[in-house]
């Protein structure tokens, strides 16, 4: 019944209530939409880095004077339990002769690069006389499967064209080529530049990296170990902070909505002073008056927040389309979390804004309230 009384009181000042609800809708929508956008931004960034969370990269420790990893160390690493894939990488930047032009690019020596790159045409199988060409290189110089290139007079047949890999923390063969380790040894010799290993599971990453550390770095730091997981987590964290910061800015609009609820509730407390006096005269207690007035604020808050929450799907969609040009991250489960968060903040704002006017109403002296005209 108190709820019904509250509802009718809001209807009495329809325009005013509608405006307060609109304020709430805007506030909640701003927070939730920006939350949804922040999440989309994070997810699309993680996609660009495309890292697998089980990936661990082992570099020589340059600070300690190591510039490569020797085969003995590499062998020790490969034998560590919990490793699912082991890829030792040799690399060198050099001039590659393509159609009589000398192009500066990276030459990788990897025996089984299937984990690190994807093939677009041809095959990934490497022998002593062929190579895989990076996407950008192939495109720029019109390389096809079967084209010939040479390095330092050593001729190689292009047996596969790679898919573009983009930014990455292991290898970047887009402007270079990949040859077998044997071929690389014949060209340059030398030890490994770094080693990429994959743990069997995300939870196994820590164990593997600890093992590498204890096996290889027992007598001084020989290698640095870098977990992709850490990196992904730090991206995650950074974007969570950005997202929260943006939401806090959007929160200002919710604050404004809260002030408008405060304002209309104070107005109606004053307008209904006489009514409060009557209710007290016929037996309403302080807490009952408080309940009636607080319910009005809550009703405004609930209506505005829920509508705002629902509309924020559209808001998030719009921002994503404008900035990220894609809405594929709008319909993910995290979205509901941000909607719930927006609604939650909306409700809290409404209750906090309604508390003071309701408290004020409940504290009126019955006799003063009754005399009020």
């Amino acid at each position, binding site marked *: 019944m108190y709820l019904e009384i509250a509802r*009718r009181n809001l*209807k*009495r000042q329809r325009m005013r209530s509608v405006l307060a609800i609109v304020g709430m809708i805007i506030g909640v929508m701003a927070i939730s939409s920006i939350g949804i956008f922040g999440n989309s931004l994070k997810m699309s960034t993680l996609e660009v880095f495309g890292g697998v969370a089980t990936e661990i990269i082992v570099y020589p420790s340059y600070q300690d004077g190591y510039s490569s990893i020797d085969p003995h160390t590499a062998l020790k690493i490969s034998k560590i339990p919990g490793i699912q894939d082991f890829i030792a990488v040799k690399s060198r930047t050099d001039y590659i002769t393509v159609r009589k032009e000398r192009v500066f690019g990276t030459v990788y020596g990897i025996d089984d690069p299937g984990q690190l790159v994807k093939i677009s045409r041809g095959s990934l199988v490497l022998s002593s006389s062929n190579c895989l060409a990076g996407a950008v290189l192939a495109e720029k110089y019109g390389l096809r499967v079967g084209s010939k290139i040479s390095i330092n007079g050593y001729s190689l047949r292009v047996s596969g064209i790679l898919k573009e890999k983009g930014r990455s923390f292991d290898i970047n063969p887009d402007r270079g080529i990949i040859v077998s380790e044997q071929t690389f040894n014949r060209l340059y010799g030398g030890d490994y530049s770094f080693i990429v290993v994959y743990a069997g599971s995300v939870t196994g990453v820590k164990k593997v990296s600890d093992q590498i550390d204890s096996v290889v770095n027992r007598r001084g730091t020989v290698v640095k170990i870098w977990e992709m997981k850490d990196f992904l987590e730090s991206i995650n964290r950074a974007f969570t902070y950005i997202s929260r910061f943006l939401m806090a800015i959007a929160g200002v609009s919710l604050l404004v909505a809260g002030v408008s609820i405060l304002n209309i509730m104070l107005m109606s407390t004053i307008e209904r002073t006489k009514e409060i006096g009557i*209710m007290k005269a016929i037996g309403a207690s302080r807490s009952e008056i408080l309940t009636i007035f607080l319910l009005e604020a809550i009703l405004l808050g609930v209506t505005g927040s829920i509508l705002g929450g629902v509309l924020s799907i559209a808001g998030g969609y719009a921002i994503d389309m404008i900035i990220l040009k894609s809405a594929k991250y709008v319909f993910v489960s995290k979205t509901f979390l941000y909607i719930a968060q927006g609604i939650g903040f909306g409700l809290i704002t409404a209750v906090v804004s309604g508390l003071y006017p309701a408290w004020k109403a409940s504290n009126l002296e019955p006799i003063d309230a009754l005399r009020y005209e």
Partner: protein
Amino acid sequence: MEKEKREIVRLEKVVKTYHMGEHTVHALNGISISISEGEFVAIMGPSGSGKSTLLNMIGCLDVPTEGRVLIDGVSTAEMTEEELTRIRRDRIGFVFQSFNLIPTLSARENVELPMIFRKVGEKERKERAQKLLEKVGMGDKSDHRPSELSGGEQQRVAIARALANDPSIILADEPTGNLDTSSGNEIMNIMKELNRTGRTIIVVTHDPSVADFAERIIRIRDGKLDVS
């Protein structure tokens, strides 16, 4: 008719002072009254003599500056706010000059309101409200809003509301003040009927013909009993 002589309301040397900036107004100036259960009392006096202040004091809406107001032998000044609220809710029914119905509620809901405050169950509440409205001749207009009722009809609803929690004291401040003579008479007849069923009625009025319904008239002037 025989009546019990149990004292229900007692005022002892009650003083009520209001401070208006520099001035102090003695709305009540040492007034002592005793009212027995089942009495029908009219309080008369010129405007500003302190009638409303007196009635509000009895109705536990206000407490005296000096002296004591006792309801059933208990001083209102010693009651907690909760106890005052409970007395207003359960023991006293208020009827005002300007009816004072809640405009957003229907006639029946207005009558239900004191029962809502007493946490009476919905079914019982609705039935009782309807019965009370029938008793004051408003049974067929229970769904009307106050704005759809005449002054006399509104005042009848107000009486039904005053009766909601079956109080033993009915306080009415100029209940006929905004009504024409015939509606006023109807209201006073209802009051008389309530008095016949054992309720104590205290009515403030200017109107001698209204005071005629009472069995005792208390006259006050300048916040004191007028014994001239």
